[in-house]
């Protein structure tokens, strides 16, 4: 491939990437700007950052000339450079501090629910898949079909009756209203993926371990689990991703609003009086992305390998 063609390729890809990421650039920019700034100059850069940059040299020099800075409430003050820097940093991060204050409980709820769900899905999914894949017993095939058959029913069919069920069980406004149905639904995909992976493991491995006197729990612990680490991490990431993004179910099962997770919490925030502060809203969107960003950095490789392995086709 010649040079010009390669440059064209990169340019096209970068254009798509820029268009995809553009909204997030504006979100970042506006998370640092006051409402007035956003109304008067939508495309401007954050004044708060400019002020920080201006005050840094003066503060470093140890200058004593008072400087004019804007504080959190938007009033102009005359203070010494060192203090001016502190005030400017507080002003710039105002949105982030407010947002964190509001969404912290939602984030913690999301963390708890998604980690518990992922743990349950991995445990139940791998154990069940192991048993269905490696043990022969009466009804194994029928049970597998019974489990996989649930994939046939879309969420729209079960949304309303599931709500009636959870209400009848007295689970509204609890973590269980989310965790139990999530595990029930999430394990199906996990069992499907794990079973096809376990089916591909060579039988000799199990045979020789069995001859050495290994029981089920040892086979599972010392052969199956170490071999399936990549698959386990893909399923874990998919599970956390799904739970983290779940909006509707937490929204309707938390009628009292105590157990809102990040997705439903962001909606609550965006429809509350806080929403009149744009920087708070935009900062909240960014903060809510951090946990998945960390997970993503940690798990990019297995995730890309898992999806790229060719398992995803019909």
């Amino acid at each position, binding site marked *: 491939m010649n040079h010009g063609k390669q440059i064209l390729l990169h340019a096209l890809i970068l254009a798509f990437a820029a268009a995809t990421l553009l909204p997030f650039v504006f979100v970042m920019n506006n998370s640092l700007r006051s409402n007035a700034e956003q109304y008067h100059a939508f495309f401007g850069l954050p004044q708060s950052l400019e002020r920080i940059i201006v005050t840094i040299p003066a503060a470093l020099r140890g200058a004593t000339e008072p400087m004019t800075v804007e504080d959190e409430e938007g009033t102009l003050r005359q203070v010494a450079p060192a203090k001016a820097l502190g005030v400017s940093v507080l002003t710039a991060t105002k949105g982030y501090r407010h947002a964190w204050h509001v969404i912290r409980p939602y984030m913690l709820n999301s963390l708890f629910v998604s980690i518990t769900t992922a743990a349950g899905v991995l445990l139940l999914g791998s154990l069940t898949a192991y048993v269905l894949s490696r*043990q022969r017993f009466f009804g194994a095939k029928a049970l597998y079909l019974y489990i996989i058959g649930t994939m046939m*029913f879309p969420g729209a069919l079960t949304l309303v009756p599931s709500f*009636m*069920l959870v209400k009848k069980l007295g689970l509204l406004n609890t973590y269980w209203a989310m965790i139990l149905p999530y595990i029930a639904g999430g394990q199906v995909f996990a069992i499907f993926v794990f079973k096809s992976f376990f089916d591909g493991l060579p039988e000799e491995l199990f045979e020789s371990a069995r001859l050495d006197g290994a029981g089920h729990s040892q086979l599972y612990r010392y052969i199956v689990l170490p071999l399936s680490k990549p698959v386990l991490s893909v399923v874990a990431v998919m599970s956390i991703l799904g739970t983290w993004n779940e909006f509707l179910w937490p929204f309707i099962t938390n009628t009292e609003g105590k157990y809102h997770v990040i997705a439903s919490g962001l909606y609550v925030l965006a429809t509350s009086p806080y929403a009149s502060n744009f920087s708070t809203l935009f900062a909240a969107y960014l903060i809510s*992305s951090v946990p998945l960003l960390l997970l993503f950095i940690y798990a990019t490789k297995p995730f890309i390998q898992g999806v790229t392995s060719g398992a995803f086709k*019909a």
Partner: protein
Amino acid sequence: MNRERIPNHRLRATLSCYAIVAVPVLLLTLFVYLPVIWAFSKSLYQFEIGGESVFVGLGNYVEFLTADPVTWPSLGHMLLLTTFAVCMRLSVPLLVAKLVHSIPVERWRYVYRIVFLTPIVVPGVAVQLIWSGLIYADNGLVNETLRSLGLDSLARGWLSDPTTALPAVALIGLPFVGGFEVLIYYAGLSGIPESVNEAARLEGCTGLRKFFLIDIPMVMSQLKLVLILTIIGGVQGFQGLFIVTRGGPGFKTTVPGLWMYYNAFSFQRMGYACAIGVCLFVLIFGLTLLNMKYFRSTEELEGGR
């Protein structure tokens, strides 16, 4: 003694298998199969939660399909939005995957895949709120861009104007480069055997001709998966619409799923909502069967069926 222990051991092994499988089976029976049965049975009644229920037979279905003024417009919106989503998700990510796959340096291919995948860390709700609150807002990106170009007269409330609401909703997510789809298509393109690429090169089949004659048939399995998932999502999905427009202005962006939600959780018409859910299930089931039957995956094309 040894002979006695073997069947005993066997029995215990089988019982422990049942004990392990029992947990997921019970969870699924309670949280999936029971709601499925309820969806069908309760759709024959008219009731509020905790209230008295009246058997109405197929009354809810008859009302939804013939009498409800929201039904057909909402189905129309759903059809338009789903068709548009299908067209976009089958084309743009495939194009991007092809572009990325064409780069000769593996390092860049990896970097670009990560770049396009990164936006999945932003919660879906946040993305939808960003579109309604930053891009389409009165002082948002679209209107401010128009104003800075001197086209003030074109600026409007894109999501609240009845003529633009539906197209505006459809365009949420522009340019539709889903990182996940890019990865899936990329996997398909990587799976094309080198012998096929080699043969195409020898025959002089390159560029666009190769893309349409070789690449697309070879990623049919992936296209089929995305097609099925997009259709299912389009028919039953309404979360985005609930967040950005709540189905308005009027009923201009209402889809059947959202109408089901309102009937259940705003009007307390649980039986009627169940009936809408059953109709959506039948629609999804039918469309998926059609897909399976008429849309050939690569393996089936190769098998010459």
